[in-house]
């Protein structure tokens, strides 16, 4: 009994262990595959379908970087990361690039030793309420119960916003977007707050989207963008210019056609267009 057992670990270790070289680029080339950190499931940004095919706005960046470095947009391993594990996954080398709707903040850029290569989505935190509540401004939410996703910058913004406006609220912490939707629809909270993009995606999927409104106040500025480890400038440049190329040509006729063509109808791009009206 005892003998047979270590075997499994070692075999698995042999299969999956890898040793990172000094340069991320060499590493990725040697591996023949890009490890890309994405959201565990946020429609529009990154979500797997029934067959495990990922699609979304952030996924497009992974595919574009893979196309730029390896010449094949399909050579991506998507590593789903939670709000808590994402930066550690990047710092430890588990992923080469983190494309997970992460906000570019001073603290993260400096203390966490990350480099955000640019902004691919300029987001802001908003509120969604049922129309029936009769609220038309976030300033009227005094005393309300608010659903909020933990492990993000949103809880800090929310606390500051209510403090600055001298209002009180009752936070209900939730773990995932799916949980938040369920709580909100069941009426367990008066308002749901997260990035405006997330609110729009969530609302669009409701049975009756017209019954809910996104309040006009955007209480924070959330520049989202892909991040890489600090210190590897060559790799940072590659991701930065892949991103720039994508931004310069949102609907490309050349370049990495395959990935972008695929994601065009995935909701992420449309979302972006819709939201431009909202938050600018």
């Amino acid at each position, binding site marked *: *009994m*005892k*003998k*047979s*057992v*270590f*075997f*499994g*670990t*070692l*075999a*698995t*270790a*042999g*299969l*999956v*262990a*890898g*040793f*990172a*070289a000094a340069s991320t680029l060499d590493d990725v080339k040697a591996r023949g595959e890009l490890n890309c950190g994405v959201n*565990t*499931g*946020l*429609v529009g940004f990154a*979500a*797997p*379908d*029934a*067959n*495990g095919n990922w699609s979304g706005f952030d996924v497009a960046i992974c595919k574009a970087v893979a196309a730029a470095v390896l010449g094949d947009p399909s050579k991506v*391993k*998507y*590593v*789903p*990361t*939670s709000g*808590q*594990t994402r930066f*550690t996954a990047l710092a*430890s*080398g*588990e992923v080469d690039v983190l494309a997970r709707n992460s906000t570019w903040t001073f603290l993260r850029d400096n203390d966490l030793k990350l480099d955000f290569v640019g902004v691919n989505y300029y987001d802001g935190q908003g509120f969604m309420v049922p129309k029936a509540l009769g609220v038309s401004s976030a300033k009227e939410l005094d005393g309300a119960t608010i659903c909020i996703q933990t492990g993000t910058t949103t809880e800090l913004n929310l606390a500051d916003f209510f403090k600055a406006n001298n209002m009180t609220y009752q936070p209900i912490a939730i773990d*995932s*977007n*799916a*949980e938040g*939707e*369920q709580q909100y*629809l069941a009426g367990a909270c008066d308002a749901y707050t997260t990035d405006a993009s997330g609110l729009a995606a969530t609302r669009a*999927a*409701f*049975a009756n989207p017209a019954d809910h409104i996104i309040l006009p106040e955007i209480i924070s500025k959330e520049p989202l963008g892909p991040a890489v480890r600090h210190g590897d400038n060559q790799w940072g440049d590659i991701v930065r210019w892949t991103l720039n190329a994508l931004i310069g040509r949102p609907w490309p006729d050349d370049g990495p056609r395959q990935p972008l063509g695929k994601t065009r109808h995935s909701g992420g791009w449309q979302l972006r267009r819709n939201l431009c009206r909202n938050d600018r």
Partner: protein
Amino acid sequence: MSEHRTAAYVRTDMLPEKAPPVSEMGAIRWLRENLFSGPLNTFLTLAGAFVLYFLLSEAFPWFRNSVWVAASVGECRDIITARWGEGATGACWAIIRDRWNMFMFGFYPRELYWRPTLALGLLLFAAAPVLFSESRRIRMIVLGVMTLFLVLAFPALGVGGLATGLMLLALVAMLVVAWSRPWGLLWLTGIYPGLAVWLLWGGSVWVPVLAMAGFVLAWAAFTATRGRGAIISVGSAVAAALAWWFFAMGPVSQVLDTYLPYAIDAVRSDKFGGFVLALTIGVAGIVLSLPIGVVLALARRSDMLLVKALAVGFIEFIRGVPLISLLFVASLLLNYFLPPGTNFDIILRVIIMVTLFAAAYIAEVVRGGLAALPRGQYEAADSLGLDYWKAQRLVVLPQALKISIPGIVSTFIGMFKDTTLVVFVGLLDPLKGITDSVRASFEWKGAYWEPYIFVGCIFFIFNFAMSRYSMYLERRLKRDHH
């Protein structure tokens, strides 16, 4: 004779038996004795009946109105409204039907579903010498059912008739072996870990084969140095195995792969999900933790102060912290503790932490088994002049492990349930990971209860069967002792 006849009231024939009073027979008597034997009992019965009625009346319409075929939650609701009228609610099992594969296999490649299925089937064959050695009847039932299941499942999973037939032949051969001797399949137990890893992850056949060769090498080193004392032989066996794995295995497997390339499609860990993931983590955890647990238990009972202190410290530490914090260590901290640049897969990291977690619990179970052995067994071993290792190997452990099996099965049940916690480090467990992922799709938004009930039922069936079997073993072992 005649005198007797004159007596007026002497009865010469038996009266027919009268039926007992109605209140003392049949259903009424049963009711009186079991349900209404006193005021308290009557109250309890009524309360119980009320609770039962309440639960059933709430749940029954929902189950009765079930919809099995639909493309989305909205369609389910339309069907229910059309069939049962406005305001009726019902279960939408179509979500399970639609995403069955995801719940079972995660994102495992569809054409390779037979591999995890076969690994699961062989698991019971491999476990037979250990778990089902007690009773031939149970062994044959379990293995027979498994064979039937595999034979039925294979064509459904798209495996050709020839391959299914070959597998059936192999399984029947193993059934025959298992019929004749309980220990006949021990060779399968030996190679199963490698086989399972190969089936699940795929890739070159040489990696598992060579990894297993390390154990053969260790055994060879152990036998070669046997005359020189236990410490030397154990030490050399460990050194030989480690040297093989760390230095020789890589080059040798490369050479073999070049000249004798034999590989099946590799499947990456990020494709694992659903019950395949839960079972992989659960089984790997329990199998890997057994030897560590036994060593820890022996260490905890050791006379050597330092060894004992280390074992106690480790066991109490692991048992004192929640599994979820150990999973956080796996996902957040393990990369800090290992040499810079080491980076392996999150499933493997989780398996490592789950193994350590289970090892501490197994150690306590085995310690119980060791303590339950009569003192005379230890003394008898000593009086035969056996040294420590021989006494443990030949006398103590076989008996102690045997009486620990029910406890080990309970630990396994607990661990299998705990595999659901891996969702919090970003893995797709069947309970929350897959469910959230399915519910994030536009079609199945709002289906809340059905996935939970479905996943709960599967867990219940697995665990209930295992717990019943462990109780059966416990009873049987108890009888053996008297």
